[in-house]
Each structure stands twice: as structure tokens, then as C-alpha cells.
């Protein structure tokens, strides 16, 4: 029987009109996302289809807008029903679970006692007003209610690993923005502060891109044989250090390198226009209709390390820059403070860890910047293009000063 040969997923996909070829294609794109060879696709498909026993998972919402849950509902094939029903057993998932109230809360406590699960956390860690900016689960007159931070600590302590999904869970997100009146912080910082050593994988952007979460689930099932400890060993990570203002902790965030290893600018389809000096200077204009570069209207793609242009959003329908809007850098740390005003271009443009000015490209490239450009694979043959490119944007006085210091020729 087909069911025995391929598992329930195969039948389900057939019901939905997804052919095996489509499915393998999808697995190939997951492989690419994981930095694996596309020849791994059949093995990924086998791992997904096999699914003998589901991996227990708890999905908790802290100070969230539920946008990351919403985003997960927008995942490409295999869709959310498949994830929920075939890979992960979400024993707690506030937004979609059947049970409510104490019937629901029992599931967290029971699973936390038994262990052997992954914890997915959405939303900020709410520490303000002595932790009372979020509370859940009280009886009459709120007797026995738990603070959001207490639930996080209980669930994280015995988890095999924690995945912090979305910028709020990573470092507090927009809520962490000045003045952070509710004293929001990120999961990694809070657990470190509380001496909880469960490893945390951080997956920013606001909301999280669902394909990336699926990629991590696949990584866990396939490459790591369902062993979260092995998952952390075999998944290449970028280490992002920062100091959390709420706890004072110096934290090193772990982000999957395949997803957070390159800037948006590195992979942007409008990149050619950037190099040609073809910019949109007014939103919704004829330059936009021609798909020019949005850098001058504030695009934060050059300093934002995510794979958005490759994965795209909403089942690959489009993504921010393709729709005509400048990237606002929602995948960066403390992204609202660091990237606003969103429509103003940054006086420093950072490509990777190197500061450059767009005026330098095609005109004059300082040695440091040039090295940076080469390292980050800017697709121009620098030497050949210098001096004969089309006219660049007008240079600001501020930029000229900085360039002079860096040894530029203007």
C-alpha cells in the first residue's frame, strides 16, 4: 500500500495535489537553505516522510503580537498542517491548540517534567513591573497565576534546546526600543541571567520567516537524528555578541549561518542597479517601476544579515524590496533604534563589518573598503569598473569628510 511505502505525508501531499516531483523540489530548496547539496533532497524527503515518532515541542508566546505564529501559517509546502501533524507534536501552542485554560496549562508542566522536547519561544521576555507585564494561568482572583518569565524558565530548564523565533524573542525586538518601558529582553539574555544553560538558537526578523524554521526542523530530523545536542554540533552558526541593557549580560547569540551569514545586499536582485548608480529617489516613482536600487530611500539591506532575497516571503510570493519598499533591517539587533528613521539612508553604509560609501563604488574605492567588497563578493570587477561607471549619487559633505580620512581621492 502506498501508505506503508511512503507514509502518511505522501498521501496527504497527493490529496493536496502536490506531486512527488514538487515535493522533491521543495526538499532541494530546503537543502540549499541548509547549505547542503541539492543531491541531499531525496534523503530529506525520506526523513520527512518517514517520521516514525513525532518530536515533542512546546511553542510559548511571551510578549508577542502572534505574528511569528501567523508567519508559520504562511509556510510553503509542506504546510503548517503537515508540520503540526507529521513532524512535531506541539503539546502547547496557544494560538491553535484545542484546549484552553487549566487544561492547556497542564500540558506545559507535564511535558517539562518528562523532558525530551524542543521549546520554541515567540515574543519578548517581559520583565517590567516585576514581571507582571505578562501573567498567565491564575485561578479565581488570579490566585496561583504565573508570570511569563516563570513559565519561560520552567519550560526552558528541561528543554533539549530552545529556538527563539522572531526579533522579539532574540533580543526584545521593537519592544526593546527606547524607552523600553516594559523592560523587555531576549530569551538568550534572560536564560543566561537566570543561570539556565539550555542552548538557545536565535532566529531574528520580524516576524520570523517560516521557511527558516522548517529548515531548522529538517536539520533536526535529518542531519541530527532528532538529537538536539547533535543538532547544535552539526549546524554551522554565526556567533553574534551583544550586551543586553536589561540584565547587563554579555551574550553571544547563535544564529544558523546558512540563513544569517550574508547580507541582504549580497543577494539582492537589485544589486546591479546599485553598482550602476541607478537609484530610486522617490517612493512609487518611475525609477521604482524600473526596479532601481532603494538604498537612497533608506534601504538597510547592506547591513542586515538575512537570506530574505533568496527565501522570499509568503510562500515565495515576493519580499520587501521587490514590493518597492526599502528594507528596514528587522533582522538586526535592537532593530528599531538602530535602523530608524527608516526612510533616511544611513550615513555609514556597512557591508559586512566594513564601512563604505556608495559614492566610493565605481568612483574611488579605499583600500579597506575594497577589501571588504571583495570579501563579501560584490559582483563587480573592481579594477575594471573604477572610474568609468555611470554618475553616482551626489555626495554629502559628511561622506566626503569620512572618505578623506579613509584615504579616498575626493
Amino acid at each position, binding site marked *: 500500500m502506498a501508505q506503508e511505502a511512503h507514509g502518511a505525508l505522501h498521501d496527504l501531499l497527493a490529496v493536496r495535489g502536490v506531486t512527488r516531483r514538487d515535493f522533491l523540489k521543495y526538499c532541494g530548496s530546503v537543502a540549499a537553505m541548509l547549505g547542503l547539496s541539492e543531491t541531499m533532497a531525496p534523503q530529506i524527503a525520506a526523513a520527512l516522510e518517514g517520521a516514525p515518532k513525532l518530536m515533542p515541542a512546546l511553542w510559548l508566546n511571551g510578549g508577542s503580537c502572534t505574528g511569528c505564529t501567523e508567519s508559520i501559517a*504562511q509556510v510553503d509546502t509542506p504546510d503548517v498542517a503537515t508540520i503540526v501533524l507529521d513532524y512535531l507534536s506541539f503539546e502547547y501552542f496557544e494560538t491553535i*491548540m484545542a484546549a484552553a485554560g487549566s487544561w492547556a496549562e497542564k500540558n506545559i508542566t507535564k511535558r517539562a517534567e518528562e523532558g525530551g522536547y524542543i521549546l520554541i519561544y515567540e515574543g519578548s521576555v517581559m520583565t517590567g513591573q516585576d514581571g507582571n507585564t505578562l501573567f498567565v494561568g491564575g485561578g479565581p482572583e488570579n490566585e496561583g497565576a504565573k508570570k511569563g518569565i516563570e513559565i519561560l524558565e520552567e519550560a526552558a530548564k528541561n528543554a533539549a534546546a530552545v529556538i527563539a523565533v522572531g526579533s522579539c524573542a532574540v533580543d526584545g525586538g521593537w519592544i526593546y526600543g527606547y524607552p523600553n518601558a516594559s523592560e523587555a529582553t531576549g530569551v538568550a539574555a534572560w536564560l543566561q541571567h537566570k543561570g539556565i544553560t539550555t542552548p538557545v538558537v536565535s532566529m531574528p526578523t520580524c516576524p520570523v520567516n517560516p521557511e527558516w524554521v522548517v529548515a531548522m526542523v529538517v536539520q533536526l530530523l535529518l542531519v541530527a537524528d532528532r538529537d538536539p545536542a547533535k543538532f547544535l554540533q552539526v549546524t554551522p552558526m554565526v556567533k553574534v555578541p551583544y550586551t543586553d541593557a536589561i540584565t547587563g549580560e554579555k551574550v553571544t547569540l547563535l544564529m544558523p549561518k546558512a540563513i544569517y551569514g550574508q547580507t541582504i545586499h549580497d543577494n539582492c536582485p537589485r544589486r546591479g542597479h546599485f553598482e550602476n548608480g541607478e537609484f530610486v529617489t522617490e517612493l512609487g516613482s518611475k525609477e521604482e517601476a524600473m526596479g532601481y536600487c532603494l538604498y537612497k530611500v533608506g534601504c538597510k539591506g547592506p547591513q542586515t544579515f538575512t537570506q530574505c532575497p533568496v527565501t522570499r516571503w509568503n510562500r515565495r510570493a515576493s519580499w520587501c524590496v521587490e514590493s518597492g519598499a526599502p528594507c528596514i533591517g528587522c533582522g538586526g539587533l535592537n532593530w528599531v533604534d538602530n535602523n530608524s528613521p527608516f526612510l533616511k539612508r544611513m550615513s555609514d553604509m556597512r557591508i559586512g563589518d566594513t564601512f563604505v560609501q556608495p559614492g566610493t563604488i565605481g568612483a574611488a574605492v579605499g583600500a579597506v573598503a575594497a577589501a571588504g567588497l571583495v570579501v563579501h563578493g560584490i559582483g563587480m570587477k573592481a579594477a575594471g569598473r573604477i572610474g568609468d561607471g555611470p554618475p553616482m549619487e551626489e555626495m554629502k559633505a559628511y561622506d566626503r569628510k569620512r572618505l578623506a580620512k579613509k584615504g579616498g581621492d575626493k
Partner: protein
Amino acid sequence: MARVVVDPVTRIEGHLRVEVEVTNGKVSDAWVSGTLWRGMEKVLVNRAPEDAFWVAQRICGVCPISHSHASAQSCEDALGIKIPNNARIIRNLIEAAQYLHSHILWFYTLAALDYVNPVNALSADIADTYALAQAAGTRITDFGAVAARLKAFVENGQLSIFTGHEGWFGVGAEKHPGYVLPPELDLIATAHYLEALELQAVAAEIIGIMGGKFPHQMTSIPGGTAFVPTEQKLDDILFRFTRVKEFIDTALIPDTLAIAPYILDAASFGGGCGNFLSWGVFEAEDLDPYNRYLPRGFVETSKGLTAQEVGPDDVTEDVDHSWYDVPSGLNPKEGKTVPKWEQYSTSGKYSWGKAARCKGVPAEVGPLSRMLVAYVNGRPEVKSIIDDTLAKLSAAAGAQLQPTVLVSLLGRVAARNLEAKVVADWSIEWVNELIAALKGGDSSFFVTDRADSGQGAGLWEAPRGSVGHWMTVEGGKIANYQVVAPTTWDIAPRDSKGVPGPMEQALIGTPVVDSERPLEVLRVAHSFDP
């Protein structure tokens, strides 16, 4: 008398707690609490007025589009910006896509499990299921495959999101008496539950195409839109709207009509305060809020079924029962946000939500409010679908149902689904309107000219209800920002006069069959899509 608590109320956006007092099998008093405070308004102060468009929508991951549009409008109102006609249509389309996404998601993913017992679906007869689906005129799918999959899933023993169901739905003698649908209808609804997951994503793709991504869109920036459509993109949008409309016509509406006869008792409770506010949504070419496709108005049913004019100055917020250290009764224009937690007490302070009031009284917001305001205004599409539905349900009930029957739990559920149908029909019309405008040579999408100071309000409607953003700009920076979100209206606690909020009033009088599993309480809470 016994206190019954549902905390958390699951299958909603955000964190909600409901505490009720049950006397002789009915709710005799209720306290509804928002249990999370994040501080959006304070984050926006001192930033560029345009930036609020991106940040403020992150209040809600399920209705970010409406918040983004209310924010953009408050900025445009404050700085004297009139958006181009193309931008108006594009915003209507993005908003419509969110409505369709949200209403489908609400009915099938969030609310259905209050009425549909998927475990019960296992005992459905497959042949009977096809017959029932055909008789109900609802969408046929491979019901056998869904049943087989459900069986495998339950037998696997790992119940995922249904974990704890044995307590909640109950099995055998413990089966909750509130689940009354025949197993065949449970199976149809479960099959459509799975299909709906696909269709809500198709609706969201439309936002992805026009707004860059969903949740949290990018393009309705104050001044117009950054999205310049190509022919290809217009095709992609039209195709998807057509697909979603087909699902609404062939599943959402027939399913609603098939389930309603089993829960007609829900027409006799859950009505609430009887005051209905709509700021109006889907802008017409003249940009007049009373002329929006779903118009602005305020209906106090105690004064008869007529709509009064209503505006930003009619709103006040009380904090006598909320954890804020600010005066009660302020208009959002002067509103302040100073949090101050103290002990939860149903006789004192018990919510992070403020008590929003319209003309001094609590006001329900949401599809029921919009449909009532549009109905009394004689909006033809709304009038015909409501009259038509009432006629169909009258036949099932064996009695002539009047429009006032809408002020109930059943009415609130039905209004949302009927609205989805009306908006789906309009969405196709608007895509064609946009195509015609572009063919006519209109290439304006965005205006850059703006003042650098001013005060304004953006009053709009999210799928779940009225949303208002108030912005004061001084010297190019936000000096004050206040939001009155849909949920703020509906889950409002008691006000200065001790009058309970809309959801609290709707809960009072609700029957509770099993106080360990207060399913009816959950149904009323969910009907607001809080």
C-alpha cells in the same frame, strides 16, 4: 455561585483571561483581562512620523495591515497629505486580502474547535458525509483520505495541538454535551479546516505581493504606496482573489449555514452591550468616511436601529480598573500611558486594557458592528445578504427571525462570515478598478510634500474591529502617539461608572453546562475574535 476561570483563552491573538461567576448554570458576572502590556505608544515618541507605519502595526500580528493603515492615515491627517487614487485602491486591496485571510483563519482555525469535534469525526460514515456535503451545497473533497489521516493521527497517540483534548472534548460518557454536530458534519468541517490553512495562506500571498510580506507589510507608507504594480503582479493578485472568493462561496458560507441550525440557541444569548461602533473601512474615491464601502456610524440599539455620526472626539478611556497611573476620561489626543501594576482584584484593578468608551458608553466593534451600521445605512450588498441569510435561518428555526436577532453569539459569528463574502466580491471589483485606472494613464502612487507639525487621527477598521491611531507631530518628530485597538474596545474592563465592557456584558447570561469545561464561555469570548 462559583467562580470559573479560563486563563489563558487559547486560539486568539495575544493574552486574554476570562473570569466569570456562575449562578444556577448561567454566568451572572464577568471580568475580562488583557494580561500583557508592551508599551508601543512610548516607543513611537520622538521618532519620525512615517516610522510609526512600520512599528505600530507590530501591535498585532494578525491584523497588522489595519494598524499600518490607521497609522499612515493619522500621519497623513496630521501632516495634510492626500494620497493618490492608485494608492487608495491598492490599500483597499491589501486590506481586503487581510480581511479574507483573517476571517477564514478565524472561523476554521480559531473558532471551529468550539463547535467541531474532530475526534467525533472518526465515527463518520464516508458515504453519508458525501451526501450531507452535497445537500448542504458545500465543498466536496476527499473525505475518505481525511478520515484515514485523522485515524492514523489519533492512533499514533501523539495528539499535538489536540493534546489535552481528552479533557476538553471528552470521550465516551465524558463527552462534552456542547459538541452537538453529527460526525459527518464534523468530518466535513475538519476537511475544510485543513483546506482553510491553504486558503488563508493564498490570501496572505496577495499581501506578500503588494506589501512585501505578511505579517507586517512594507508599502502603504504615509504619502501613498511604494508598490508599483506590473501586469504580471496584477494577474497574480486577481488569480488569488478569485481562488479565495471561490472558497468562501463554496465552503465558508455553506458551512456556516449548515452548522447554524445545530446551534440556534446561540441566538438567545451573548448579545452584550447593544452599542455598535464602526469607523468605516474600504475608502471610496471621495475619501469620505461616511461613504466608505463599509461606512462609519454608531448604533445604540436601545435608541432604535439608526446610525449616529461619530468621530475621534467621541472617544474616552477610563483606567479605574486598569493598571495605569493616569486620569480617567481622557480623549486619546491627550492620552497618556504610565503603567503601574498592583494586585489583581475583580473589585479593583484587573486588566492591562483601558476601558475605551464611545459617547460615554461601552461599544462593541467588529464585523457585527460594521454589518449593522451598513445595514441600517441601506448598503445594498450588505442588506441583501443579511436579509437572505435571515430568511434561510428562519426556515430552519420555524419562526420569522428579525435583524435584531443578530445581536447575539450566533449573529456575531454569522456576521463575520457574511462580511467575508461581501468583501470577496468587492475585491475582484477593485482589482478591475485598479487595472482601469492604470490603463487610463494614472501613474501617481506617492506624494512627498508634507507639513512638519500637526495633529491627526487615523480611524479605520481591522477585521476584528475599530482601530484608531492618534498622532501629534512637532518639528518633524512624534510628540504624542495613542492607539485604541479593536480589542481595547471589546475586552474593556469596567469604566468609572462601574459599567462592564462589551465582552463582559456578552458573557453575562451565557449558560454554562459544565463549569469544569466552560465551552460556552469560550464560544462567546472567541466570537469577538479578540
